[in-house]
């Protein structure tokens, strides 16, 4: 687990006392830290260079904010810059005026194209469309079989034949027209970009079927090579968008920014798991914090959503947003978290947690201990922990079977967490999330949880 950027920045900015502006020297130092963070997050070097220059322009000589610490101010700017690079608007799919809408998937071997094809098919189905899957990967042993199995799972027919990829793609589209499907999704074989014959092949498939959407499927854990790959495929195929796969891993995902910068087309979807329902629209703001290494608070809330009911979730988010996070809320969260999965992975998504808390591999017995401590508090104490003096501490310690040291630790760590929750960046993000949820009124795709 890494120190968060805010921790690092705080150290740099303690020198900035009593000054009204962000000094150049401090900005330089901070930009060096950001550079390291971005590179560690697998953002492409050339993209990092551009980002740092843009940030330098925005930060140097900027007036110190009244409401934010210098560290928070810089983080806010970095987040905005990253979010902007990653996003802009959300991707909206426009169906072809004359059906079918043709979708072509391309990418390296193992990037997740075949799985994405099936997920996309399910997604279209849920939009009320009638897709056909076309298995044009004749290279990988049993690739067509894999697509057929997945097709059965999502209830979508799969077309393929033992000819060649070019013919399969063309005949697949023709078949879709023949049986009146309004969407065709063509899966192709993975290929390395320096294989000229194979790149020519996919280009000829593209030219022949004239897809409405060509997506590059790229693995979220891709390193510096992401730009090479994206450029090559974009040059060959003129991509319309990107599908980022395997983001349920713990890779920081800098490839997302790299690819977006190079291709200039939106990241349309993300693949969030191995099951066919694990497919969502892309959220740039969440990805930005994750790439920076700041965790994914909004994702945490979304995960919580699926376990909480609507009401509890809204209430929790409101109190988080207003910085009124209490031990009562924490107790609720812990119990919901237990349902969500291993606590260490959930906590790893919360930025600004003190190092000790993050680095400690928190096991279930730690949760039990924390729960016991909170339960031994009176309701007042849970809402106003500052009430807890020495004698109350002793009482809680006896009631929960823990030491006063453990209680002190919890109180201290919790205070840090509250501080972080109140920070403007988080509040802004949470406010956006709250707004977003109210608008949507539910997910576009069901999560298979």
């Amino acid at each position, binding site marked *: 687990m890494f120190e968060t950027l805010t921790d690092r920045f705080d150290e740099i900015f303690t020198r900035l006392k009593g000054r009204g502006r962000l000094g150049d020297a401090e900005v330089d130092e901070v930009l060096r830290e950001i550079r390291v963070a971005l590179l560690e997050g697998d953002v492409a070097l050339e993209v990092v260079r551009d980002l740092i220059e843009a940030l330098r322009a925005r930060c140097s000589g900027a007036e110190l904010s009244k409401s934010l610490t210098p560290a928070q101010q810089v983080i806010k700017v970095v987040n905005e810059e990253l979010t902007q690079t990653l996003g802009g608007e959300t991707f909206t799919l426009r169906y072809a005026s004359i059906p079918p809408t043709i979708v072509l998937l391309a990418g390296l071997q193992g990037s997740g194209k075949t799985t994405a094809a099936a997920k996309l098919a399910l997604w279209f189905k849920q939009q009320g469309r009638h897709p056909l899957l076309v298995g044009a990967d004749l290279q990988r042993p049993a690739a067509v079989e894999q697509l057929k199995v997945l097709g059965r799972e999502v209830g979508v027919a799969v077309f393929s034949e033992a000819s060649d990829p070019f013919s399969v793609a063309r005949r697949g589209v023709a078949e879709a027209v023949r049986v009146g499907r309004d969407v065709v999704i063509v899966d192709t074989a993975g290929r390395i970009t320096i294989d000229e014959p194979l790149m020519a092949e996919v280009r000829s498939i593209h030219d022949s079927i004239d897809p409405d959407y060509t997506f590059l499927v790229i693995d979220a854990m*891709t390193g510096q090579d992401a730009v090479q790959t994206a450029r090559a495929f974009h040059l060959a195929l003129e991509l319309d968008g990107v599908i980022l796969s395997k983001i349920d891993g713990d890779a920081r995902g800098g490839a997302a920014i790299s690819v977006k910068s190079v291709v200039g087309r939106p990241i349309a979807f993300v693949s969030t798991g191995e099951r066919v329902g694990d497919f969502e629209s892309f959220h740039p703001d969440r990805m930005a914090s994750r790439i920076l290494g700041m965790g994914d608070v909004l994702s945490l809330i979304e995960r919580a959503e699926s376990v909480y009911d609507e009401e509890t979730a809204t209430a929790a988010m409101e109190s988080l947003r207003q910085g009124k996070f209490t031990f009562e809320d924490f107790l609720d969260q812990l119990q919901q978290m237990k349902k969500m999965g291993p606590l260490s992975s959930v906590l790893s998504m919360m930025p600004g947690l003190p190092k000790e808390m993050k680095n400690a591999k928190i096991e279930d017995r730690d949760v039990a201990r924390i729960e016991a401590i909170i339960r031994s508090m009176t309701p007042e104490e849970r809402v106003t922990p500052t009430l807890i003096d020495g004698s109350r501490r002793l009482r809680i310690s006896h009631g929960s079977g823990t030491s006063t040291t453990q209680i002190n630790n919890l109180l201290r760590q919790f205070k840090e967490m509250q501080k972080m929750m109140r920070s403007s960046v988080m509040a802004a993000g949470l406010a956006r999330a709250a707004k977003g949820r109210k608008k949507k009124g539910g997910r576009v795709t069901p999560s298979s949880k």
Partner: protein
Amino acid sequence: MLFRRNREVEAPSAEAQGDLDDSGPDPLGTDLNGSVSETDLFEDEETEDDAVERTRRSRFGRSRGVLRTPLLGLRRRQRVDEKTLEELEEALILADVGISTTQFLLGQLRAKLRTKELSGDFEEMIRDLEASIIALFDGEDRELHRSHLRTTVWLFVGVNGVGKTTTIGKLAGREVASGHSVVLAAGDTFRAAAGDQLALWSVRSGADIVQGADGADPSSVVYDAIAHAHARGADLVLADSAGRLQNKTNLMEELKKIRRVADREPGEVTEVLLVLDATTGQNGLTQAREFARAVEVSGVVLTKLDGTAKGGIVLAIRHELGLPIKLVGLGEQIDDLVVFDPVEFAAALFEEGERE
């Protein structure tokens, strides 16, 4: 696909295939290109010299015999200055070596420049850096170990899509070609048609295969394969496992169980090979760390090195975790597997990749 093959007999083009049954593994052992299993052709056509030459002309050997081209983006100079070192740092980062190991390597360089051990001549510095990189891999145990008394089991692990099944197929081909009897264990019981995929490799390589039902317990499939191998007196079991992300605790627990079960009589797990995709960024280090913690990885197979990615993450893996890199995958064909060679690897790190 025939990219960069160095063989005299070309497989027939895809159009000429005719009536290929696409509904499952082909019992005649033809691959989807319609050619006969490569190992058959191989035995007759290739001399040892050919084999060596083919290895040379692998992705490593592309620049062999040609004056080494400058490190990615690095301008060739006479003297080393601070700018040079910065460019060098960037070049290493571009290769996915990562900040930490890059700083380690550059730290060594800077120290040598300070003590005048290095004169500041550019060429000399590059040679020294290459030597340092090669030295990182000194003393690696690159052998694939076998059991003396029990049935040898090599377990393949890694995240989704890295090339575990293909690597098993290649290794099976190699082992069978050198006279060993091999049993494949279709331990990926989760992924759609994973068993079918491995079955095709069993046909191509000449290895036996033991499969379970879809969704069967992977440990029991692996165990059955080992029992089968033991009963037949087979030399080697290659056990496939489902790809899994290392942050999924329950899946890592499942993997631990697979290893435990495979390590029981009559089997002995003498290798746990982590298959790693060369395009992986810094997460590769996390993968190695977590998989090693869970199942005691004995070595790494670096795949897809025939692409544009440099696979520099293995430097970090070696430097920080001490894991040996044993094998390298250079393509999708059965013979696209070589022993890791640090000299070739370092040279390849330093060459310009081919760009469109």
